[in-house]
């Protein structure tokens, strides 16, 4: 079976996020008010071949932690989007 997976990588709480902070500082000048706490992260979408959805998710989570993020500063979570052909 093939499963489509999404991995979100975000900076851990307390870790400085210069990109998010810079975007937030720029917003009022662009006419966007009332936007706060901007945090920038990464997103990965891929297909995993596995015997079950549980196995697919476990593989994706392992991949997320080992390759797509550095657990010292980032959190990574995988979630299943659905089955694909």
């Amino acid at each position, binding site marked *: 079976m093939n499963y489509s997976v999404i991995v979100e990588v975000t*900076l851990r709480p*307390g*870790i*400085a996020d*210069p990109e998010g902070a*810079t975007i937030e*500082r720029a917003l009022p000048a662009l006419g966007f008010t009332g936007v706060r706490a901007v945090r920038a992260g990464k997103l990965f979408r891929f297909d995993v071949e596995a015997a079950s959805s549980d196995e697919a998710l476990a593989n994706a989570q392992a991949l997320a932690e080992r390759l797509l993020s*550095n657990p*010292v*500063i980032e959190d990574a979570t995988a979630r299943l989007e659905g089955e694909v052909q």
Partner: protein
Amino acid sequence: MLSREPNPLELALYGVMWSEHCSYKSSRLHLRRLPSKAPHVLVGPGEGAGVIDAGDGIGVAIRIESHNHPSAIEPYQGAATGVGGILRDVFSMGARPLAVMDPLFFGELDDARNRWLVEGVVSGISGYGNSVGVPTIGGELTFDQCYSANPLVNVLAVGALPTNRLALAVASGVGNFAVLLGSSTGRDGIGGVSVLASAGFAGDDGAASLDDAKRPSVQVGDPYEEKRLIEACLELLDLELVVGIQDLGGAGLICATCETAAKGGVGMDVDVTAVPQREVGMAPFEVMTSESQERMLAIVTPENFDAVKAVCDKWEIRANVVGHVVEPTTMPDGSTVGMLRVRHGFDGEVLAEVPASSLADDAPLYDRPRSRPADLDAVWADDPTFDEPAGDPAADLLGLVVDPAWVYRQYDSQLFLNTVVGPGRDAALLRLAGPGLPASQRGFAVSTDSNPRWCALDPRVGTALTVAEGVANLACVGASAKAVVNCLNFGNPEHPEVMWQLSESVDGMAEACDGLSLPVIGGNVSLYNESGGRDIDPTPVVGLLGVVESLVAPPPGWDWREGDTVVLVGHREAAGETPFPLAGSRWATRRGRRGGRLAGFDASRLVSTFDFVTGEIAAVCAGEPRDVTAVHDVSGGGLAVALAEMAAVSGLGVTVARLAGLGELFAEFPGRFVLATSDAEAFMGRAVNAGVPVTMLGAVGGDSLHLGGLVSVAIADISRQRARSLEEALELL
């Protein structure tokens, strides 16, 4: 020191300030032996950066520092924040940063984690250095098992200033404000210096648990903030709006406030609530010791504060008054002491009160036990010079040629239109020019060098030879050496063998600097570098700064031309004498031979050779007609590698008729140069006149390198191997 029991906050502040990293308590005793004086030294060790007078009203500031332990945990951010920190040291002197160099040391690349570290560190330096707008013009790249899991990431920065803009980190003027500039303060790197740089990597209990314990210490760099901070600070200094200025580095605000107060002989009240905080609920200890990046402390008179604020607003930089300079306190015995007070509100509760100088200057001084390693004689006896079989020297040569271009291509090495010789050659050579500097035709040159293979065999001689190698690299771009900075990367100082190495290394550096008339104007010590429970090989990194008086034409490169004569300046191996030593060479190390004795360090012999080569190349730079067409010093990999690199770059071979043996091919010790000349007779005449040993090696031509019947190899093979070997090892091809 205090005539009472310190409270917990005070104790914690002492703990951080007296850590190894901040106080140099194990190394200070030894560093005193380094010579630091010369007429052209404007600022010696002890300030943010050393500064020399380079002529034409221009001062050049230089500083080197390690960021080893942070880089082992988060290579990108560890390296990036290393660049940020060293730049602040330089612009805190009033100098515009003009160049960065990055000596790097990793474990072998057959290990996936080491490959991950290499890619992370290089992209961190690239990401920060390029974005902050300072060219990275060179560095070093060394692989050895001893750095596995404990990479060394050293960063050197050079800046230039009109000598009248020189700024010092001093607080004076009672009533003046201490203004915190730049980023808000978070919990980044709380206790970072004491946690990270003053403890080793235990190794056996597994990397994961160790990473967990150190997680909160990771700092994230913001090159964009730093770029604006540089522009704002230089503008403040140009407008003479600050009394003193200091960067916030290790131990953060506490370090900057107590050091500036101690230097000014004044007291300072610091209000923790006035510090802009990125996170809620930070304790005073956290605010005072956070190592949040991109922050500076400026001492400003109240009248100038509005003008300071206006400059900071333009560059979108925060500026908050966090401290007041106050009168020193009169003690019962009549003496006066500048007190550092940490308060909750300027009129609020005093949370800590300690003499500023006791935090800054009174850290204990250790004379840790030293002992010569017990196995040293056995190591010396195992000398490859006498019994290592020749094997296939051509294959050895191909195994030794590596072009680090994959690394330095990732660095902007050209910004400011100063780079005459960029990375990839012997030393970098830049025009001495930049925004706000007086006009000058001078150039400055920088080289970083290290040789842990030599220093493992003999830290004293190895370090002395390393200094000489730096001078040789400068000579290749026509620059006269003016000053030395160093970064002493060693193992655990609680091991007597490590302290012996450190002490020997300092003596070797002192001997070389005395012999070559060079002042040491700055340095940094990184201890507790251990991998898998084993101390790293002693790794003193030497940074050399030189000046070219007239730079109107580029110096010769490595590329010789058809019909040129290739000559060797420096000693040849004489028949019947002891062969050139192979101990500590890259050739021997590749064969697993790590023993033997080094060649000695002989200053008088080196000086005449260095002066001759420097003069020849400086003449080319000055635009004088010369017959020298190419130059390269003999260094890592020996004469064989030097010739192979020149052949590869030129696409033209050379045939060298006679070579004494493996020693002449692969031995490494400074003081030898390969030059190419279009007029051999004239060149030899000048060398003989200068009293410098010189021999003709052969004529340029053909598409192969033939070395004394020992090596015959096609240039195409050398070029391919040079270009590919690093990326292949990184598994990128």
